[in-house]
């Protein structure tokens, strides 16, 4: 396997800046890796035919003396929910097959401006609805740790791409855990920023009050470097927070020194007992807590009595917002059009198009959302769910009055088998039990690898949550625990992942 693809984005950026590697070489190495392994992994829906041109341009500009930021020339995989002018954007749906956006999402535009090389578009559950990437209209992505298992979802493609060394960096989106849960099952790092911290302009909307774009990487520092590029105020997103953010890469570097754990108060939620998690997931979680305690952190039991209502509230708010957002796929302005025989009205065409263009999970959630918003049910369902949101925010406020961060396992189980839960939507929804409260409250969350579950040898992640706007705290704490864990293992967790066949070792 080529050494270039094993480098972190931070290391690769330094070698690019020092002239030891060109962006063309770095990009080619990743394209070769994709060619070798993506037939099995299927992380990518599209590989960018313009990637080498973009790399050549960065190399030329650098040769001409232009100064760039720390990750210029580094390849980037982009979740297909983000629109791009140079590649199709489908959001994993047949209804948008071949769609070419006339504009770039803000996070994509900022990535290009920072010299990142758009490598391709990654697979996802259709319109980001799912926890396994099995609901992609283009077939599932496979977990690089075990091809029979799911890579998480909805951003399984982005997580699998970085886990399989097909890209050092990827962009994801997280509506109820779609960045953090895939990180958990693939042994990678994922961050959902504070709501409004990263622009949603050009992210094909699922649930507008919950969606947030964020980094998907192999290390906390790499996530910070990418967050620094994509974050900050964007006038094109009216929910974007107009404020100054600190450097998250600097926060990660500070955290890696380990000193930040001394005196840190870490909250553990008593309503999420170990009995609710797979044995190896709970054990890995406890090991991480013990390691943090050994470095001076204080573990404090806290109560979040309303978290148990989070999944229920989420599966009312999300379908309600999604049923509105997806109304635009009506066969008129873009996307698929299916015209029934005879002399159909535009309404007949819409109904036939949406029948043919949406998959089963999307139909299920649109119908559920239409029900939740209908007259007579609105107050009982949607109105009540919005009140639960308030109660969960109050739980967070009370918790953060006592502790600096909250820690939970990132998901209840390790990666399950492809097909195992596909016919049981309720079981699928429960995968997001620990990640959903952050989206409902707007607070940031990070998942970093905490080890392997003893019973199945599959990756486990630990999630940290911080108050809104305190993303930097997550980078400090995440990097501190990451450093301690990698030190105790002797090497990064991904070094223990199976070597993929086709890799030119």
């Amino acid at each position: 396997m080529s050494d270039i693809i094993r480098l972190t984005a931070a290391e690769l950026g330094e070698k690019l800046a020092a002239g030891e590697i060109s962006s063309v070489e770095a990009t080619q190495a990743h394209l070769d890796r994709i060619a070798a392994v993506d037939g099995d992994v299927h992380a990518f829906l599209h590989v960018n035919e313009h990637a080498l041109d973009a790399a050549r341009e960065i190399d030329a500009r650098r040769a001409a003396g232009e100064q760039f930021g720390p990750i210029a020339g580094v390849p980037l995989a982009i979740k297909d929910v983000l629109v791009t002018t140079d590649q199709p954007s489908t959001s994993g749906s047949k209804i948008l097959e071949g769609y070419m956006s006339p504009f770039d999402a803000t996070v994509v535009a900022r990535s290009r401006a920072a010299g990142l090389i758009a490598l391709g578009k990654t697979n996802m559950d259709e319109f980001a609805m799912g926890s396994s990437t099995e609901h992609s209209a283009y077939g599932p992505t496979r977990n690089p740790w075990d091809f029979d298992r799911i890579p998480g979802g909805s951003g399984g493609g982005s997580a699998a791409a970085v886990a399989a060394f097909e890209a050092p960096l990827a962009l994801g989106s997280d509506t109820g855990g779609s960045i953090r849960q895939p990180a958990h099952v693939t042994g990678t790092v994922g961050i959902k920023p504070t709501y409004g911290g990263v622009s949603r302009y050009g992210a094909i909307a699922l649930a507008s009050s919950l969606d947030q774009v964020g980094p998907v990487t192999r290390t906390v520092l790499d996530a910070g470097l990418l967050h620094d590029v994509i974050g900050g105020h964007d006038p094109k997103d009216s929910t974007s927070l107009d404020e100054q953010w600190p450097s998250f890469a600097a926060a990660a570097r500070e955290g890696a020194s380990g000193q930040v754990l001394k005196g840190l108060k870490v909250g553990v939620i008593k309503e999420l007992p170990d009995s609710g998690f797979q044995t190896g997931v709970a054990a890995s979680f406890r090991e991480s807590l013990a390691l943090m305690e050994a470095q001076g952190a204080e573990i404090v039991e806290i109560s979040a009595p309303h978290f148990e209502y989070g999944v229920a509230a989420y599966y009312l708010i999300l379908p309600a917002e999604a049923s509105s957002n997806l109304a635009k796929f009506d066969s008129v302005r873009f996307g698929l059009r299916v015209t029934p025989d005879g002399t159909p009205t535009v309404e007949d065409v819409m109904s036939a198009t949406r029948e043919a263009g949406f998959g089963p999970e999307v139909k299920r959630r649109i119908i559920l959302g239409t029900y939740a918003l209908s007259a007579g049910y609105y107050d009982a369902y949607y109105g009540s769910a919005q009140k639960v949101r308030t109660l969960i925010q109050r739980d967070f406020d009370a918790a953060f009055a006592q502790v600096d961060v909250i820690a939970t396992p990132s998901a209840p189980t390790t990666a399950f088998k492809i097909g195992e839960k596909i016919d049981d939507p309720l079981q699928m929804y429960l995968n997001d039990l620990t990640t959903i409260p952050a989206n409902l409250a707007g607070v940031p969350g990070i998942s970093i690898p905490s080890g392997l579950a003893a019973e199945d040898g599959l990756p486990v992640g630990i999630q940290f949550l911080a108050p809104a706007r305190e993303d930097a705290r997550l980078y400090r704490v995440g990097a501190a625990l990451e450093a301690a864990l990698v030190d105790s293992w002797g090497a990064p967790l991904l070094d223990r992942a199976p070597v993929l066949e086709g890799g030119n070792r």
Partner: protein
Amino acid sequence: MVSEITPDLVRHLGVLARIKLTDDEVSQLTGQLDAIVDNIAKVSEVATPDVAATSHPIPLSNVFRPDEVGQTLTPEQVLQNAPDAADGRFRVTAILGEEQ
């Protein structure tokens, strides 16, 4: 609250959502939605009248931009993904059916 998800209701929701559903889809969705609604109805247990609703996680107010012409798409860009277009406009089938 007892949910009342029936095949007729699901069919009606399909009409409202502009999704033509097959009989198989209707029967499958009826069972699944019934189970889902039974589970999510628990939100009403704690949603008492004294609790305010939250529609947006980070409250913001009066988000305006300067009243200036911004970046806009050309008519060609707007129409580039249209399934059908004519004379610089989107073309669709009849808006009204014969019975309307």
